[in-house]
């Protein structure tokens, strides 16, 4: 299975590199190719639209604030499932694209145990074993996988709720909310980590590159692999 996925991804990456490009300057490393960046922002934009339109319907306290963004309540309800569908499809491709680097390892379990150290910023660098993604990033990825599945299987009955059973709508309503709250919690942390918390990270999703120092700081194992250098481990 993985080989056909990898072949598909390689083809897709090559195809996207034909239309877009990633300029890697001296002292920088290529982190996210064009294909990954396009998928990421398709997922991100559709997610934000689904989040805003969904939270308009989620809470009476947000209804009057958020529905005008989408042209009123009826239009919000009409558009929300389509935002969700774009999100699900785009994320499915991102899922295939990142399946290999997102595989959970022993190092990630160790990373999770050191979460407190990470959050309190007591260490200036990640552990030497931290590779392309750290444990937190992988956890977020798998939470999105879980939420996307929940969104899809509960979103369809909610979309066509005039024809499905009453209890199914009532159950889906709650599960859809739970998936949204999980996603929102992860999303807040994700945006913070990708911008204000780690200078130099945001451009990896815009230009596709990071500085060598950034890679050395946040992903030492990937740094060694990508550069072939073996800096001192002290």
């Amino acid at each position, binding site marked *: 299975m993985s080989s056909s996925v990898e072949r598909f991804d390689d083809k897709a990456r090559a195809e996207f590199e034909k239309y877009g490009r990633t300029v890697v300057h001296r002292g920088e490393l290529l982190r996210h190719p064009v294909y990954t960046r396009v998928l990421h922002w398709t997922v991100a934009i559709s997610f934000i639209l689904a989040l805003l339109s969904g939270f308009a319907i989620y809470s*009476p*306290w947000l209804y009057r604030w958020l529905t005008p963004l989408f042209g009123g309540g009826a239009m919000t309800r009409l558009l929300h499932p389509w935002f969700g569908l774009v999100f699900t499809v785009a994320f499915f491709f991102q899922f295939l694209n990142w399946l290999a680097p997102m595989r959970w390892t022993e190092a990630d379990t160790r990373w999770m145990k050191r979460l407190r150290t990470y959050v309190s*910023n007591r260490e200036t660098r990640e552990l030497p074993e931290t590779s392309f993604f750290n444990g937190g990033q992988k956890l977020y990825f798998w939470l999105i996988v879980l939420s996307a599945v929940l969104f899809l299987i509960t979103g369809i009955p909610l979309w066509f*709720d005039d024809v499905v059973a009453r209890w199914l709508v009532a159950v889906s309503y709650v599960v859809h909310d739970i998936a949204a709250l999980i996603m929102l919690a992860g999303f*807040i*942390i994700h945006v913070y980590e990708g911008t204000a918390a780690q200078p130099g990270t945001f451009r990896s999703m815009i230009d596709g590159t990071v500085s060598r120092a950034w890679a050395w*700081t946040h992903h030492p194992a990937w740094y060694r692999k990508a550069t072939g250098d073996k800096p001192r481990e002290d």
Partner: protein
Amino acid sequence: MSNPQTMQIQEISAHPGPVPGRGTQRAAEVCKYIDVTTCIGCKACEVACVEWNDHPFRETSFDNTYQTMPSTEWNYWNLIKFVEHERDGNLMWLMRKDQCMHCEDPGCLRACPADGAVIKYENGIVDFQQENCIGCGYCISGCPFDIPKFNPKTKKVFKCTLCSDRVGQGLEPACIKACPTGCLHFGTKQDMVQIARTRVSQLQNESGFANAGVYDPQSIGGTHVIYVLHDITNAELYGGLPANPVIPPSYTIWKWLAKPTGLLMAILGVFAVFFHRITVGPKLPQPEPPVLTKYPDEAAGAPARSGRREVP
């Protein structure tokens, strides 16, 4: 779809903050009384409903009973449910007029996420305001009586209004006006319950229906449409009338407790990352250390020397 100004509003769906004008005027609770035991199934009420609300004449469907169609529709709000029932070797026709029950605690209103799409008047009438309806259909799953019906063309939900447009002008609902047997009455809730109790004791003491009773389910705080049934212990028999109607917890506990809690947590989360940034601070990229290399002869296999050369 009446003019909400004509009657005082008590509750508004998905409305944060107070209800304007609530409690400023006296308003007696109204009620529709339906005596199932004296209904002859003439369907005059069905016709009156279609007439008054200017609904088109729908195609009917025959399913071996005298029922007009299987269930109420978005433009057919009043339906006599026919049930053939055997009691002590005799055939009984149970004919129940099915329509919105105008619950004291309406599941449709609780489920609705659109501000002002479902309103409940002080007099107990629950009414949909289609101009505010977003067509999500949650009210359908919130209703224990399967009453709100979706119109796929306009993507709006419709149901019986208890003729709020007539009641607001001091008239009785159209179905009441049309009833030839007097099995339908309209008045204050207090009066209707009184009539119903009198009729029930008559049924129990003079007609041999020991289980006769008033259907006014307290699980949803009572309804503004009440039935007199021959057998209150078997409400399900009357075309699926729920004995104990309930609103799904999704629209009660989850919506009014868990949802706001989740929202509050999200807001706290945003504050948390902000304060993390200004207290703990960012993780800055650290300068790379020099790279370790070997002397050329070491690379060729010679034993390592004690000193290391560092190349930037």
